[in-house]
């Protein structure tokens, strides 16, 4: 942490100090969610490995979950902001459950694909190409 | 403690919290490290006795009680080797991941009423979940070592731990159901009083499921007879074949930490937590509110109680290890899927039905009235607040009607 602060330009010090001292709001969580989501989308688009694509999906769902939890959290609610209440947490729970189910099925499909093609490169899945 | 630092010493708030956090972390770390030292020595002695040997006798005096310390120094001085084809980063990180997982689970583990790193509303769940993370270090170690023995060990461990988490979860749910809370402190509090209040003796189903829990716990921390990940007669040393020196000792500490953890969890869930078999403190007139010093004393004794129970659990695991032969991998899977899981499910249903059939307990005065348990859902930490007790039935009735309407839409 100290290394990080030393490496940053002096102008960034007030920013860091502000982040460290001010309470966290919903927007902070939204930024994290956005970064996770973007990383997931890029991962899905970029990887040719089927497992990599799966990991991208997990990241995207996770990013969405961060947003749900942030909106439902009573800790983060600012003055006058609306809140999802408990609903956000429950939706996040359902998303986690369905992500696990999706991972199981997708892995089974990947395994079958590997059995038939001896690779997990999704660009090789072109049997139906006309 | 933070209050003491703020009010009496006069430190600023954030500094007080920091110091408190570090002291708590150091205490937990010492429990793990010190526990590992004692347990390794105990394991040597017990193994020796069971095999009709003497075990360590010279190091540090009569019983060889400094043997583990000597081992530790030897490990520190050993060269830290890494195989040529290894994945360097993962190879170096794996032991720490294992150890961190084991350490993190201790955060939510209460040692006595107030002696808990962070009292969590979902304590049981958290401990079980974090304990499952430990296997990651093992798998990464097995993969990163670039050795067939290690990979075999890691694969076995993955299959075993993921499978055994299912029955383990089911066993853990039963005390949660009886206490009406996932908070470990609340669960232990509910078992206060005489030994008959322990959930082990709550009904026949809990008695059976305790032994299922013991089996699954031994399997989930990879102790013999389920130690297939490091089966030394087949896999040299399994996942830690390529490790040496300090890194290897981290795996060892994680293993002993987890053993202690599952034993303490068994004590909290089934064996009354920090409550002794006889409510000595209550009989002597010491109870909450008698005074700070007396309270502290009671809690200290409770802490000793819990440590004693957990240690007994660890000793049981050692006894089992040096008595039973190792299972084959298919036998391990059969034990989990064909025996532990169905038995746990049946016992779970049984315990639930027992609650319905004998809400007051079979013998009055021995079991706790179920009404008290139901109250727990609404009151106390983790439940709905006491002030909201009145409106709850109304909300419940309204919600029930709504859900019925929703269900009727389906066909």
């Amino acid at each position: 942490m100290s290394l990080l602060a030393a490496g940053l330009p002096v102008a960034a010090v007030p920013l860091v100090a502000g982040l460290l001292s001010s309470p966290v709001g919903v927007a902070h969580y939204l930024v994290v969610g956005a970064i996770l989501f973007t990383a997931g989308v890029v991962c899905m688009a970029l990887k040719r490995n089927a497992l990599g694509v799966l990991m991208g999906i997990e990241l995207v769902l996770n990013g969405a979950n961060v947003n749900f939890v942030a909106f439902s959290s009573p800790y983060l609610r600012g003055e006058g902001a609306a809140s999802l209440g408990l609903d956000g947490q429950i939706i996040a729970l359902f998303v986690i459950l369905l992500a696990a189910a999706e991972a199981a099925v997708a892995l089974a499909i990947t395994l079958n694909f590997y059995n038939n093609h001896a690779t997990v490169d999704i660009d090789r899945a072109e049997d139906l190409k006309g | 403690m933070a209050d003491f630092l703020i009010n009496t010493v006069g430190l600023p708030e954030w500094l007080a919290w920091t110091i408190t956090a570090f002291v708590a972390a150091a205490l937990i770390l010492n429990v793990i490290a010190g526990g590992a030292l004692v347990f390794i020595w105990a394991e040597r002695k017990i193994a020796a006795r069971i095999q009709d040997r003497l075990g360590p006798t010279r190091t540090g005096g009569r019983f060889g009680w400094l043997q583990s310390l000597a081992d530790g120094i030897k490990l520190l001085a050993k060269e830290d080797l890494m195989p040529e084809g290894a994945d360097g980063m993962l190879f170096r990180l794996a032991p720490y991941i294992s150890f961190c997982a084991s350490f993190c689970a201790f955060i939510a583990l209460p040692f006595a009423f107030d002696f808990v790193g962070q009292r969590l509303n979902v304590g049981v769940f958290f401990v079980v979940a974090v304990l499952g993370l430990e296997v990651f270090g093992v798998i990464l170690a097995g993969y990163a070592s670039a050795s067939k023995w290690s990979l075999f060990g890691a694969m076995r461990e993955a299959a075993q731990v993921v499978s055994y988490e299912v029955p383990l979860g089911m066993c853990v749910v039963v005390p949660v159901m009886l206490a009406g809370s996932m908070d470990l402190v609340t669960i232990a509090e509910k078992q206060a009083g005489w030994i008959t209040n322990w959930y082990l003796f709550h009904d026949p189903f809990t008695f059976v499921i305790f032994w299922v829990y013991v089996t699954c716990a031994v399997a989930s921390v990879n102790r013999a007879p389920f130690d297939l990940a490091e089966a030394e007669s087949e896999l040299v040393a399994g996942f830690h074949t390529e490790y040496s020196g300090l890194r290897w000792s981290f795996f060892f500490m994680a293993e002993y930490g987890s053993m202690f953890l599952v034993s303490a969890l068994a004590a909290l869930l089934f064996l009354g937590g920090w409550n002794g078999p006889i409510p000595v403190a209550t009989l002597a007139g010491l109870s909450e509110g008698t005074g700070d010093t007396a309270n502290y004393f009671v809690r200290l004794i409770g802490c000793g109680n819990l440590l004693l129970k957990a240690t007994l659990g660890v000793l049981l695991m050692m006894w089992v290890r040096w008595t039973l032969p190792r299972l084959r991998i298919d036998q391990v899977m059969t034990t989990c899927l064909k025996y532990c899981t169905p038995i746990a499910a049946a016992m779970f249903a049984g315990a639930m039905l027992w609650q319905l059939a004998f809400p007051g307990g079979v013998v009055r005065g021995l079991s706790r009235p179920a009404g008290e348990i139901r109250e727990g859902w609404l009151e106390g930490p983790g439940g709905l607040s006491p002030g909201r007790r009145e409106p709850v039935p109304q909300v419940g009735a309204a919600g029930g009607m709504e859900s019925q309407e929703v269900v009727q839409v389906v066909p």
Partner: protein
Amino acid sequence: MMTTVLASVMPVAAINWHSVLFLLFAAVACACAVAVVLAENVVRMAFYLVLSLAATAGLFFLAGAEFVGAMQLMIYVGGTLVLLVFGVMLTAQAPFVAIKTSSSDRVLAGMVGAALLAVLLQAAFRVEPWRRPATAAVAAPAATPIGMALLGVRADEPAAGVPAAAVRSGYLLPFEIVSIHLLVVLVGAAYLARAKRRRTPRAIDVAASSVGPVVTARQAARSSASALVSGGGR
């Protein structure tokens, strides 16, 4: 060092540990998510993914959603564990360890990703109430209301700004649907991943016939795979 620098800027007593922990977890989550994209090796990708998911669980704990955080740790870690194992299994042979992406694809993906991120951040900062710092000091979070809601009974306080309590219903029906869904997935995954008997040799056996021991390793791993899948899909 840090404190001296900071002390010149602001009073040290103002350090907010909640924010510090948030920054820690958020940094780990984001850095590891980016590392997943950049890594080539499947096992390392899975490792970073696990770190990212675990840090997100930490964020959930900080936001007061303890139950969701614990669920995240338990289920995602179980699921990702399976990913990891499959990664090792399916890429055990040398030609399949890294499937490279071309650098032009990387540049393109980076640009599209940056654009997407810009849009999302713009949306996040656009709404003024979201930017306000948290004010509410609230009671301890409870898992009980979540359990009650899943049983179709809403016992929690209505959220501020939601006028009609009549629209608030429980989640019994979605809960049942998800249960059935998980059961179906369990059966389906076990069916898809089952070991098949074939008369003709599979492509994988032909490919692996040159290296003897690897085949046995993979077969041993695959026999436990169906058990793993059912474990991960719980």
